[in-house]
C-alpha cells in the first residue's frame, strides 16, 4: 500500500512538471498550428534562470525569475525565428524550432557547464508522510503551483478579453484579424505564457532533483506525450496526461526495471500517436492521421 502511495505521490509531482511543459506545447500549437520542439529546452532555460537568480534572491522569487526568463526566451524565439518564417511551411518552422533548441542547450552548456545544478527549496524541512508515502515539501509546492498556474491559465482563456482574443486567433486567424486582433501580439502572448508555465514549474522542481543543460530533450518528449494525451487542445486533459505519463514511468521503474522506464514511456508515445492520436479527448485529429 505504502509503495503504491509512494508511486502515486512521485507521479503527481513529476506529472505536474510534464503537464506544465505539455500545456506550453498546447498553447503554442493552438495558436499557431506548430509544435515547438524547443519547448523542453525553454523550460530548462527557465530552470537555469532560477539557478542564477537563486544566488541573490530567495527561492520563491528565483522561481518567479525562472518563469520570466523562460517567457523572455520564448518570446525572443518567436520574434527572431518563427515570425520571419510565417510564410514558410510547417516543416521549415519545425526545423527552426529544433535548431533553436540546440542553440539554447549549447548556450546553457557554455555558461553553466555540463554538471548538474541545484538551489535551496522554497521552504526548508523534511518530507511529509501522506498515507504511507513520503513527499518532499518542495514537491507539494510543485504540485500546488502547477495547479494554481493551470487554473489561472484556464481563467485567462475563458474569462478575460485577451484570453478570448487569443482563442479567437487560434480558431480563425483571418476572422480575428478582421475584428482588430493583432495576430503577432497574440502569438507573442501565447509564447510568453507557454514559456512561463513550463519554465516556472521546471524551476520549482530544481531543488528536489538536479538540472543540467541536456535535460531539454527528454523533458520535451515527456511534455509532448502529455500534450498528445490532451489532444493538443485541452489544458486540463494535458495536466492529467502529464500525471499519467509520470505514473507509467514511476510504476514501471518501481516494479519492473528502473533502467528501462524511459524506454517504455517512449514506446508508449509511439503507440499512442499511432493508435490514439486524439489522446484523452474525443476530437478527431484528422491532421495527424
Amino acid at each position, binding site marked *: 500500500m505504502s509503495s503504491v502511495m509512494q508511486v502515486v505521490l512521485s507521479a503527481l509531482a513529476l506529472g505536474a512538471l510534464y503537464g506544465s511543459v505539455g500545456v506550453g506545447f498546447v498553447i503554442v500549437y493552438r495558436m499557431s498550428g*506548430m*509544435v515547438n*520542439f524547443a519547448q523542453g529546452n525553454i523550460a530548462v532555460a527557465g530552470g537555469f534562470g532560477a539557478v542564477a537568480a537563486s544566488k541573490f534572491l530567495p527561492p520563491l522569487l528565483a522561481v518567479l525569475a525562472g518563469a520570466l526568463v523562460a517567457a523572455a526566451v520564448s518570446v525572443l524565439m518567436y520574434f*527572431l*525565428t518563427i515570425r*520571419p*518564417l510565417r510564410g*514558410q511551411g*510547417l*516543416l*521549415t518552422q*519545425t*526545423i*527552426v524550432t*529544433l*535548431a*533553436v533548441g*540546440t*542553440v539554447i*542547450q*549549447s*548556450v546553457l*552548456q*557554455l555558461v553553466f*557547464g555540463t554538471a548538474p545544478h541545484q538551489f535551496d527549496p522554497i521552504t526548508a524541512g523534511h518530507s511529509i508522510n501522506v498515507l504511507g508515502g513520503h513527499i518532499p515539501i518542495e514537491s507539494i509546492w510543485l504540485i500546488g503551483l502547477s495547479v494554481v498556474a493551470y487554473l489561472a491559465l484556464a481563467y485567462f482563456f475563458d474569462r478575460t478579453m485577451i484570453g478570448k482574443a487569443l482563442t479567437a486567433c487560434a480558431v480563425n486567424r483571418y476572422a480575428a484579424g478582421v475584428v482588430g486582433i493583432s495576430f503577432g501580439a497574440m502569438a507573442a502572448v501565447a509564447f510568453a505564457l507557454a514559456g512561463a508555465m513550463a519554465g516556472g514549474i521546471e524551476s520549482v522542481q530544481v531543488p528536489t532533483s538536479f538540472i543540467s*543543460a541536456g535535460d531539454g*530533450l*527528454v523533458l520535451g*518528449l515527456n511534455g*509532448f506525450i502529455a500534450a*498528445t494525451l490532451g489532444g493538443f487542445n485541452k489544458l486540463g486533459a494535458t495536466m492529467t496526461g502529464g500525471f499519467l505519463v509520470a505514473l507509467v514511468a514511476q510504476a514501471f521503474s518501481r516494479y519492473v526495471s528502473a*533502467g*528501462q522506464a*524511459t*524506454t517504455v514511456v*517512449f*514506446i508508449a*508515445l*509511439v503507440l499512442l*500517436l*499511432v493508435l490514439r*492520436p486524439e489522446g484523452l479527448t474525443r476530437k478527431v485529429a484528422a*491532421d*495527424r*492521421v
Partner: protein
Amino acid sequence: MSKVPPALLRNRAGQGSLGILVWVVLVVVFALGFDDYYAGVGSSTALLAMLGLSMVLVIGYAGQFSLAVAAFYGAGAYGSMLLTTKTGLWGLLALVIAAVVSGAVAFAIARPLFRLRGHFLAMATLAIGEIFYLTVNNSTSLGASSGLGGIQSLKVLGYTFATTRSQFVLDWLVVGALLWGALQMRRGRGGRALRAIRGHEAAAQAAGINVPMAKSQVFTVAAVVSSLAGSLYAHQVMYVDPPTFGVDVSIQILMLAVVGGMQTPWGAVVGAVVLEVLQLTTQKVLPGLFGDAGVGAGQQLIVGLILVAILVLRPNGLADVGRLIRSLLDRRTTSAAAVREIDADGDDMTTLRRKEDALPPKQIGETVLAASGLVKRFGGVTAVDDVTLELHAGEVLAVIGPNGAGKSTLVNLLSGNLVPTSGRIGISGADVTRLQAHQVARRGLARTFQTPSLFEGMSTLETVAVGAHLTGRVGLLRSSLPTLGAVREERRIEQEARDALARLGLEELAGLDAKSLSLGQQKRIEVARALVANPTILLLDEPCAGLNKAEKRELMLFLRAIAREGVAVLLIEHDMEFVMAVADRVQVINFGATLRVGTPAEVQADPAVIDAYLGVAHDDANTEDEKKVDA
C-alpha cells in the same frame, strides 16, 4: 521532341559518364593531396553526406518528416560489429545482412508510422531514435554505454581498406554512387511519385500512386543507406558507442541537409562539407573563446545559429542557388510564349454545341460508373444524402446545384478520396465502394480538383507525367538504376505528357513551374494530368473556375471531343452557359439529394430546379410571358 530523343539520350548519357569520370578523378586527387588527418576528416564527411542523402530521400523527395536516421545508422554499425566479431562473418556479408535487416525493420514499421504526418511523425521518429539509444545504452550484451570494439578493417575481394586514404576513396565513391542513384530516382517514375506525394497527397493518390506503399519503400531505401553508412563507420572507426547514434545526431543530419538544401541530393553533399568545414574552423577558434571544455557546446551553438540564420534567410538551402538562377533564365526565355492567348473571337458555346450536334450522332455506351444510395455524413452534417447516379461511356453528365449541395463531396466519394457512410459505387460492374483512391484510379477513373492541386516545385511536364503513373511499371529501384527498359518507358511517358499538354494548348508551358501559372492554366494542367492516364471515366470538379470565355469554349469542345472517343465525363460546374452547352444530361442536386435528372432542356424547364437553383431563368421566363401578354 520525339525525333530527337536518341541524340538527347546519348547526350545525357555522355554528360552522365563525364560526370562520373570527373567525380572519380576528383576523389583520387583529393585522396592523394590529403594527409592522414584530412583524409580521416574527409571520410567522416562522406558518412555524413550518406546520412544526409538518406534524409533527402525521405524528407526532401517524399516530404515525410522522419528523424529516425541515426537509429538505422546505429543498426548498421552495431550489426556489422556484432556479426563480424561474434560470428566471424566476412565484413561485406555482415554489411549486407545488417542493411537487409535494417530495411526489413523499416518496412515493417513504416505502414503504421506513416499514418502520422508533420510534427507528429517527427516526434514519433524522434522517440524511436531515443528508444534505440536507450535500448543499446542499457544493454550489457551490446556493451552498454562503454560500447563495443574488435572489428577489423573492411576487406573486399582480398583488398583491405586499412589506410584512411583508401577509406576516403571508398566512402566518396559510395557517396558518388548514391548521389547518382538519387539524381536518377528524382528524374524517374518512382521519384516523381514521391515528389507528387510531397506536393499534394490526395492528388498523387488520385493519379494512382499507392501512397502508403511509396512512403514505406522510400523509408526502407533510406534505412538501407543509413545502415550502410553505419557499417562503414564501424569498419573505419573500429569502435561503436551509443552517443554516436543518438537523437542529436539525427538532428545534426537534419540540419546539414537543410543547410545544403532538401530539394536536391546535392544538398546533402554540400551540407556535409559545409558542416565539416565549420567544425574544423570552430575547433581552431573556439578554445581561445570558451576554453577547451567549451568546444563541443560552442560548435553546436555556432552550427545551430548558422542553421537558424540560413533557414530564416534562405529556407531552401544553399544548393538551391543554382536552381534559382536556372529558373530565372527559364522564365526569361519562355515567358513570351507562355502568354499565348487563345483567339477570343468566335461563336458562343450554345452555337458551337449546335454545330457539334449536327455531326453524326455519338455513341452513348454502357454504364461505366454507377452509384446508388450514396450517403456521406461528417459528424452531424449530412453532405451527401442518398444520391444515385449513372454515367455512361461517351456521355457528358453535369452535376449542378447550389453551393454546399454536396457536389464536391460526391466527386470525392466517387474517386475514392472519401469513403461513403453508406451506399454502393460500381465501376463497370465491379464494386469499388471501399477501395482507396489509387485503386479506383487503377480501374480507369481520373479526376481534377476544385482548387488546383498541383505539386510544389514540379514543372508542368513533370506534373502531367505524374498522371501517367499507372501506365508505367518502373519502381523506385529501377528509377535509381535505369535499365534500357526504364529509359524507354520514361521516354514514352514524357511523350504522352507532351501530347496531353499539346491537346490542351499548354505545350509552351512544359518547362515552367506549374504552381507559378495562372489559375486557368493550372486548371487545364489538371485536365491534362487526368487525360494522360487514358481514363475511361473523367471527373472534373469545377473545371471552368478561372478560365476566360475563349478557354471555356475550347474546354467545352475538348470535352465533347473526348466523349466522342468514348470517355465518360462527369463534371461539376456553376457556369450554366457552359453546363448547358457541354452536357448530354444534367443532374441537379440540392441539400445532398437528387432533385432532377434530364437533358439540359428538360432541366432548364423544370419549375422545381428553377426554384432551387436557376432562379434567374425563372424570372426571364416571367418577363417573356409578360412581354407576350403585352403584345
